[in-house]
C-alpha cells in the first residue's frame, strides 16, 4: 500500500502555526536590530583599532564564527545557569541570536568601514566635523550600503538558524512543527509545509531588508 499524503491534517493547527510564524519573525526582528547595533559598534572598534574594545571584538568574532550556533545556544541555556545566570528559553534564544549575528555583522561592517575612501574623511575633517559626526554621517551610511547584501544574507541565515531554538523549548515555527507532527502523526507533510513557510519567509525578509536598505539608509545618505 502506498502512503496517502494528507495535508488537511495540518489545517486544524493553523493557530499554532501562525503563532509560530509570528514568534520566528519577532526573534528575527529583535536579533537583527540588536545584532546590527552590536555589529556597528564592533565594526567601528575593529576598523579604527579602538583599544581595548578591538581586542575583545577580535576574540569575540573568531570565537563565534568558528563554533556552531547550536552549541552557542546550548552553552547559554544549559551552561550559564552554573554561573548563576538563569535564562528562559525565549531569553536564551534572543541572546544567542544577537551574539551570533553581532559577530558576523562586526566582520561585515568592518570591511565596509575600511573600504571608505580616504578623501571622504579628509573632506569631512576640512568641514570641521567631529569624529562622531564623521562616523555617523560620512562613513557609516555608505559603508552599510556597500555591505548591505552580505548583511541581508546573514540575516536570512540567522532566521533559518532560529529553527534550532526549538531545541531549548522556544515556541517558534519549528517547535510548532514538532508539536503538530506529534499530534497528527503526519511528520512528512508537516515538515514539508513548514519548510515551505520558511522559504516564503526568507524571500519576504530579503525583500523587506533590501527595501529598508535602499529606502532608509541610501535615502539618508548625503
Amino acid at each position, binding site marked *: 500500500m502506498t*502512503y496517502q499524503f494528507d495535508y488537511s491534517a495540518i489545517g486544524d493547527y493553523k493557530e499554532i502555526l501562525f503563532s509560530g510564524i509570528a514568534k520566528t519573525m519577532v526573534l528575527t526582528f529583535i536579533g537583527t536590530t540588536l545584532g546590527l547595533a552590536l555589529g556597528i559598534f564592533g565594526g567601528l572598534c575593529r576598523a579604527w583599532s579602538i583599544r581595548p574594545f578591538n581586542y575583545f571584538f577580535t576574540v569575540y568574532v*573568531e*570565537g563565534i*564564527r*568558528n*563554533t*556552531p*550556533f*547550536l*552549541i*552557542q545556544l*546550548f*552553552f547559554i541555556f*544549559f*551552561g*550559564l*545557569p*552554573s*554561573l548563576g545566570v538563569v535564562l528562559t528559553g525565549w531569553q536564551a534564544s534572543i541572546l544567542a541570536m544577537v551574539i551570533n549575528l553581532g559577530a558576523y555583522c562586526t566582520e561585515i561592517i568592518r570591511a565596509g568601514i575600511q573600504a571608505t575612501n580616504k578623501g571622504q574623511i579628509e573632506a569631512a575633517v576640512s568641514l570641521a566635523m567631529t569624529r562622531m559626526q564623521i562616523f555617523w554621517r560620512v562613513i557609516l551610511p555608505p559603508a552599510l550600503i556597500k555591505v548591505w547584501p552580505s548583511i541581508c544574507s546573514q540575516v*536570512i541565515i540567522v532566521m*533559518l*538558524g532560529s*529553527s*534550532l531554538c*526549538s*531545541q531549548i523549548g522556544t515556541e517558534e515555527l*519549528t517547535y510548532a*512543527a514538532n508539536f503538530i507532527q506529534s499530534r497528527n502523526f503526519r*511528520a*512528512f507533510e508537516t*515538515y*514539508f509545509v*513548514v*519548510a*515551505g513557510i*520558511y*522559504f516564503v519567509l*526568507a*524571500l519576504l525578509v530579503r525583500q523587506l531588508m533590501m527595501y529598508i536598505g535602499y529606502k532608509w539608509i541610501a535615502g539618508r545618505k548625503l
Partner: protein
Amino acid sequence: MNDIFLSDIVINLSYGLLWTIGLSLVAFVMGGIVGLTLLFCRISKNSYLRNLTKVYIEVFQGTPLLLQLFIIFFGTGLLGIEIPPWAAATLGLTLFTSAFLAEIWRGCVESVSKGQWEASASLALNHYEQMRHIILPQAFRISIPPTVGFSVQVVKATAVTSIIGFVELTKTGSMLANATFKPFLIFGLVALGYFILCFPLSVFSRRLEKAMYIS
C-alpha cells in the same frame, strides 16, 4: 554517576570529534561531487536545466537545514526505507553542501572576465573547449579561498545532525552534560572542539584570499 572524571569526558568527546570530522569530510567530498554536477547544469546552455538547478539551490539555501534533515529522515521512512541517522545526516548534509558549493562556484565561473570568453571564441574553440581550457582553470583558482571558507560552514552544520540522533560531538556533549550535570564545562569543551577544527580553516582561507589579492 560521580565517577565520570574529566579524562573520561575528554576521551568521549574526542570520539565524538572524530565522528564530526568524518561526517564533515564525507559531506564535503560528496557535496563537492554533487555540487560540481549542479554547477555544470547551472551554467549549461539548456535553460530548462539551468532553471531547475536554480530552484534546487534556492530551496536548499532558503529552508533551515534542520527541516531538510527532518524531511529526509521522515520522508525516507514513508517510502518504506528505514535509514539510520548517520545515513540521513550524510544525505542531508551532502545535498545542503552541494547547493552552496554550486552557487559559490557559479560566482567564480562568472567572475572570469568576458574578454576571456570572447578571445577563446575568436580562436574557434567550441563551448566545451572554452570551458575545459580557458574558463574552468581560471575559475578553479578563484574558487579555492571561498571553498575553504565554506568548509567551516560544513563543519558547523554537522552539529545540527545531533538533533536527528547522529552521535557526533554535539550529541556526545549533550549526553555527557545530562550524565554529569556539568553543562558549563562540557559545552565549553564541545565549543573548543569545534573551534580547533574551524579556526585553522578560517585562517587558511583568509591567507589564501590575501595571497590571491596580491597576485
